[in-house]
């Protein structure tokens, strides 16, 4: 088991290198470079001298492979470099101040989704074609089809403008420092309610669908028949025998959504003015802030690879059939 994991980990290294190389190439090929953007593209003030100075400062005057090698030698020492943005702060510091919010938001979102999607999926599957199933099917399609930004704006209009119950955007009220401790907590939570609601809505739809599908497949299996034939109560048949097996594909999907926890949602963060990773990345792309883009990419790519691995490993942990398969393979 450990050997398998290590081998997979080892194989991930060339893959990661490849990813960084291609990304590096692609972002440098995109038109517009930081030196141009910062010296006021196409403005009278944009003088060639300032531009050249920046290009030298950022090594942009060097050939691409030299730039890549330089970047790579730094990154293996876990030095993510400094942002090209005029504040020239370290990339890790920039990511560090954005990460907690995005993580918090996405973990809560994930938990809410799982907690709601599993029962919805199970109920819809066990009562296939019932009213509940039909209602959730409609709900799911609406969820899939609703654009985040539109739903967000509608909710903001309703709860923020019309009813005035919830704040519209941001993370904290402006008078936050002057509130009592519990007021502060409520203030923070109330700012997060709408973003989480919006982010959950779309994800919930997908997840509950997967759950339903997976459950439907399992309940048709022979061992479910035999469990019923043994005279077990339906709750035990579904809750114990069927559910555990139906959860397997969900684990994979959950694993694969790990990198998304870090990446952040651009749309939700922009609309709700939440200073998270998604916004950082978008701004970096607009400014052609290569170190921040690459730093972000490395982290997300690493996590994707790790998440893949973790999904596979946990899969084999909870599914004895796969575990056996691995052993046989090693022999």
């Amino acid at each position, binding site marked *: 088991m450990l050997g398998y994991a290590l081998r997979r980990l080892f194989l991930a290294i060339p893959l990661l290198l490849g990813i960084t190389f291609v990304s590096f190439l692609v972002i440098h090929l995109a038109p517009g470079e930081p030196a141009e953007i910062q010296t006021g593209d196409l403005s009278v003030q944009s003088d060639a001298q300032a531009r050249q100075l920046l290009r030298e400062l950022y090594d942009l005057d060097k050939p691409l492979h030299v730039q890549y090698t330089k970047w790579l030698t730094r990154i293996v020492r876990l030095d993510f470099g400094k942002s090209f943005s*005029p504040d020239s702060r370290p990339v890790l510091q920039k990511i560090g101040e954005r990460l907690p919010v995005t993580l918090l938001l996405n973990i809560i979102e994930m938990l809410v989704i799982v907690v709601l999607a599993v029962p919805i999926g199970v109920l819809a599957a066990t009562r296939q074609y019932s009213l509940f199933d039909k209602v959730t099917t409609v709900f799911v399609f609406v969820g899939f089809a609703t654009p985040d930004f539109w739903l967000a704006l509608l909710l903001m209009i309703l709860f923020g403008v019309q009813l005035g119950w919830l704040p519209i955007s941001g993370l904290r009220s*402006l008078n936050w420092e002057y509130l009592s401790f519990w007021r502060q907590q409520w203030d923070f939570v109330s700012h997060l309610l709408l973003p989480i609601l919006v982010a959950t809505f779309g994800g919930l739809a997908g997840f509950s669908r997967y759950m339903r599908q997976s459950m439907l497949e399992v309940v048709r299996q022979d061992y479910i028949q035999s469990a019923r034939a043994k005279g077990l109560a339906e709750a035990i048949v579904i809750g114990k025998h069927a559910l555990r097996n139906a959860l397997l594909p969900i684990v994979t999907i959950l694993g694969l959504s790990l990198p998304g926890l870090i990446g952040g949602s651009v749309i939700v963060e922009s609309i709700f003015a939440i200073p998270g990773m998604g916004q950082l990345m978008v701004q970096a792309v607009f400014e052609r802030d290569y170190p921040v883009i690459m730093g972000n990419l490395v982290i997300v790519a690493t996590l994707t690879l790790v998440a893949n691995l973790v999904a596979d490993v946990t899969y084999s942990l909870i599914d004895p059939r796969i575990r056996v398969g691995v052993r046989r393979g090693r022999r």
Partner: protein
Amino acid sequence: MKRRAPFARLALILALGLAGCGVEADLVADHAAPSEKPAHGDTFIEALTGNISGLIPNVLSDSASFEVGSLIYNGLVTRDRDLNLIGELAESWRFSQDCLDLEFHLRRNVRWHDGEPFTAADVVFTYETMINPKTPTAYREDFRAVASVEAPDPYTVHVRYTQPYAKALQSWGIWMLPKHVLEPYVREGRLRDAPQNRSNPIGTGAYRFKEWKPGEKVVLVANPDYFEGRPYISRVVYRIIPSQATIFLELKAKGVDSAGLTALQFKRQTEYPAFRKAYHKYEYSANAYTYLGFNLRDPRFADRRVRQAFAYAINKRELIDGVLLGLGREATGPYKPGTWAYNPNVKRFAYDMDKARALLAEAGWKERNADGLLVRNGQPFAFELLTNQGNDERKKVAEIVQASLKELGVQVDIRVIEWASFLKEYIKKRRFEAIILGWGIGLDPDQYEIWHSSKTGPDELNQISYANPEVDALLEQGRTSCHQEERKKSYARLQEILAEDQPIVFLYFRDALPVVSSRVRGIVPSANGILYNFNEWYVPKHLQRYTAG
């Protein structure tokens, strides 16, 4: 709402500039009732769509940083409500008759935010910073004609120029930097790395830095020792809200105190009583115009009659009504009506299809083919009109131009291209036939870079390749005098030629449409927009919304 940098900044714009004049007539009366005395206190909340990129604006280039920076720092001069240059840190100045010597006398009661006195040494230091080849600034050009800057005593600065430079005075609106704090960083060429670029910048301005939470907010507090007295509004909070739609909703929920509206929001979505009660609306011409430009290397467009024909065929009023819901002004040239350089007596091209047809016929475009297109030497008149993505306004303008020219028998195909590649692949390489674009104009009328025939290189701004010896001479005269009356003559003639020549079809100046919370008093809309006297804005005691700070 964007605050202008104190420079003449001519930029091909994506964003809105602003300044101008006029307020909705019905609002003038209810400002500042006499019983409501100016009072200190309250917080003013403004929305920025982008994170600021630093706190030393001299080495930055985004409008958000300029807006914040202009409250923290001062220049030697600034612009008043009528756009005249007035002293800020300078008490007075004097030009020599030949425009080569400029002497400033500085205010004596100015202190930096850390308590040190502001002196002539700081002015010399700021100049040295700007011309230091290691300083990554976009404003070096302003100081290129300077021969020397000296400080004969702590409150006198003497500037000598190598040649007369029209923007000399204006260029000293540059934000003054503290020598005692920043000198080591400038010397090492690391001004951007200075801690003052990230927090606690030291300026002389009306507001001091309190905090900057990246991506979230920037907070400034009133400077009690400001040389013109403590400003009334105690705290200014810039909230960073990337989405325009969200800003608008925050405005409705009173989460922000001011924002710039779109024409649609201004006309259709804010005309209900509660909004009109909570906010005052302002409108004035922005410092930017939209135009239809041609590649003059194309023989079809090199013929002036063709360009004039197009000018006649495009109904500008209809364009403004259709695209901006009427919230704009017709452009007759590259200067904004109401500014000192503007010349109203130039040739105008009122909508006239017959004149347009006649001019095209004169230019040889007479016959029509089976599709109804004009033909010359067997070639139908068809061209591609480019504009950039992300600007709905320009796309609509392109569509109206397309329809107008179709009536003339000219086929126009519209192509919308992403901004960065639009600039790099099409504009800079001159690979276009016609474009819809805009110019942001500076407060100084010098437009040498745009119209002079020497400025047609790939990175230069005369993208249409316009060359007219008389225009060249006028531009040279205009930029080498420090006497406004002389300059005015040059630019008046320049506008006559440009109007006659129509190197581009000047379309319109869009209106800037800011709204500000109605509890704020002291706003006097002017040719210079509304923000120029921010320090004098106040909220009467009984209307103050925020007590903290």
